[in-house]
């Protein structure tokens, strides 16, 4: 439980350093409107760019979602809630929600577990550690399009596909990867996992290195095995990092597009919609069927879903820290006040 103390005090100290006292002291020295307004001028470029490329498209999408608007067609006409009414009675929408969830789970869970394990291994002192660490990031640095195309041929339906060759050696029949429901989802989850595991492992590794070594030493003296150290020292110490990666992966899974799009040669997500995730459904509706108003409605609903998921994750994490961490929080504050008092 004491695990957190050093990190948290560091955080509070850093927070206190950047806080009001020094800046108020400076402003009392040179007061003036120009000085007070200067920060706004400095951050204005960001907000101008954000307004043009972030906020405006967002609001425009919301606006379009209330209109009947065809790709390559005439100008939008107001349609009220029609697009949303269509969306919530569309079977394809619920199918895509479900596929997003299943592909999200079968890609995110193994990916984070692998990443955690790999980071734990890389955290040991070993030779050529830098080499292993760099090789972790190689899949992430690879172009997703190129990787997906390679995986597309690895998971080819014919007996000549690499996975099917391996299955053949094992005496199994070749699998028609893209046409099956779960086979296609698994193939896509493998691509996602391959691409993101190293990235998450590096984040975990960074988190692990902020866990003080003496905790491991203490655990080792108490006779804890490497695995027990991992369970009882590493995992609790990484909790905020894990939350962070879960939030990122959740957003990533909701926005999954390139892999299923290229895997299936189009936005249909397979003839049965086996892997038509939300974004593919949106793309198909907008750019293949050509109903931009409906696609905008899907985009808005997706945004709301992402926000809800992130809030849910954050809420769950809060619950967990409140359950287990109540005394810790108390101790945390006393520790920092003690430091501050000194």
């Amino acid at each position, binding site marked *: 439980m004491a695990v957190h103390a050093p990190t948290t005090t560091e955080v509070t100290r850093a927070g206190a350093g950047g806080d009001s006292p020094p800046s108020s002291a400076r402003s009392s020295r040179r007061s003036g409107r120009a000085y007070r307004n200067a920060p706004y001028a400095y951050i204005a470029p960001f907000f101008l760019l954000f307004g043009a490329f972030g906020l405006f498209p967002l609001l425009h999408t919301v606006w379009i979602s209330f209109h009947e608007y065809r790709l*390559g067609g005439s100008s939008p006409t107001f349609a009220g809630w029609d697009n949303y009414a269509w969306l919530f009675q569309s079977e394809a929408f619920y199918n895509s929600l479900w596929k997003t969830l299943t592909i999200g789970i079968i890609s995110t869970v193994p990916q984070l577990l692998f990443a955690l394990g790999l980071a734990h291994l890389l955290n040991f002192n070993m030779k050529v550690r830098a080499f292993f660490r760099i090789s972790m990031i190689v899949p992430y640095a690879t172009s997703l399009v190129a990787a997906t195309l390679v995986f597309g041929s690895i998971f080819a339906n014919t007996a000549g596909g690499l996975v099917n060759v391996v299955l053949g050696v094992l005496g199994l029949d070749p699998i028609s990867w893209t*046409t099956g429901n779960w086979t296609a989802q698994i193939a896509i989850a493998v691509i996602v996992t391959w691409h993101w595991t190293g990235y998450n492992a590096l984040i975990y590794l960074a988190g692990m290195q902020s866990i003080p070594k003496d905790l491991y030493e203490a655990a080792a003296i108490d006779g804890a095995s490497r695995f027990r150290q991992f369970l009882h020292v590493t995992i609790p110490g990484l909790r905020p990092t894990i939350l962070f990666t879960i939030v990122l992966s959740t957003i990533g899974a909701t926005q999954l597009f390139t892999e299923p799009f290229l895997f299936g040669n189009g936005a249909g997500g397979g*003839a*049965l919609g086996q892997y038509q995730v939300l974004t593919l459904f949106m793309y198909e509706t907008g750019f*293949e069927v*050509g109903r931009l108003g409906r696609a905008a409605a899907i985009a808005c609903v997706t945004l709301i879903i992402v926000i809800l998921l992130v809030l849910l994750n954050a809420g769950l994490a809060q619950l967990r820290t409140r359950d287990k961490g109540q005394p810790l929080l108390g101790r945390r504050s006393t520790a920092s006040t003690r430091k501050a008092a000194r």
Partner: protein
Amino acid sequence: MFSARSRKAVLAVAAVSVASLGLGACGGSEASSGPVGTADPDEEVTITVDSFGGIFANYDKAGLLDQYREEHPNVTIEFSEVQQEPDYWTALATKINSGSGLADIQPLEISRAALVTSQQQDVWLDVNDTEFADQLSEETEAAVGAITTEDGAVLGMPTDSGPMAICFRSDKLEEAGLPSTSEELAAQVTDWDAYESLGQQYQEATGGDAWTDSASGYYRLLTSVEPVRNYDEEGNPTWDTNETVKPAFDRAAAVAAQGLTAGLDQFSPEWNTAMSTGDFATIACPAWMLGYIKQQAGEENAGNWSAIPLPEGLGGNWGGSFLAIPRDSENAAAAADLAAFLTSAEAEKTEFEAGLAFPSNTVAQEQIQDVTDEYFSGAPIGQIFSASAQAAPAQPLGVDDGAIDIALTEALVTVEANGVSPADAWESASSTIEDQVG
């Protein structure tokens, strides 16, 4: 600067032509040639082209672009091309929505014609407003009618048409002990049932090889010969009730369920490869497929392919394109001149003789009756495709033809690849169409 001034002048002309839209198709008020004047032979001009599916690559191959450049040394032609029409259309439609970025010539595929004529009247130049309006009378009524708006504006010049035939692997049929020349096979394929039972014979003889490439290709073939497809004359969707779609779907699905198809996605890499390996024996063959097969099957398969006409003297059409010019184009006059040249009888004849595309121009159609093709074992392709073109019905098109076709062909894929029963596949296609189009 000269070019800047002339740009303004052209813009003014474009503005006039946009303004005249409100007056309907009342012709030009400036000169006899209409709002778009004659191209100036002395002015240096660069015509940009965005294209798809090898339309301009074929013009290039047939030597037509070089010929035009020689005759018009002041003209530079810059074309770029993507292979897949859906990708092209998405990019094009996005440019139209955003109001900028169109090239001087943009081909349009016939399946988009209904949408173009009902919603993009303001975007494209009316060919009647150019000095090449007369050339339209040489084109087939079906082609011109497809791209004509309610007000009578013709938004593009027809480049080609896709009369249907059936292409087959003569070498594979010979191996299987079936009639393998164009004449012999045509005599055997007296109707669709005969075509399918030959498929069963082929399958028995070869130990299970596929008779045709895909159920969706066969479905295309079956629907192309009927008077209507997804829409009726008034533009109402009738795909779920008419005499074309459901019977054709059932027939194609039955063939798929029997395992006579190779179950390949048309235009996928596997499908392309199968053209050279001979994984299927026959394929629905619109005229533009000849060039496609040659490209994919390669020189080593020259003489292994042949073609027969559709049974019962039927004719059908799949595809065809139009060269359209944006009203806002700065080089509208020069672009119209080039487009008119490329769609002239002479040019379309040249293209077919090179085995690339079948003319939509009736004058050219009459001149190519005797063409045969060595690649296709000397089959009389001129005769076969002309007959099909003449027998082809002018099917009414609809705004959502594309979405309906995709839903139905995907349902056929589930019959082939996922073992879905034809009845279930029809149900799911129906609900998808209701969902997307309704």
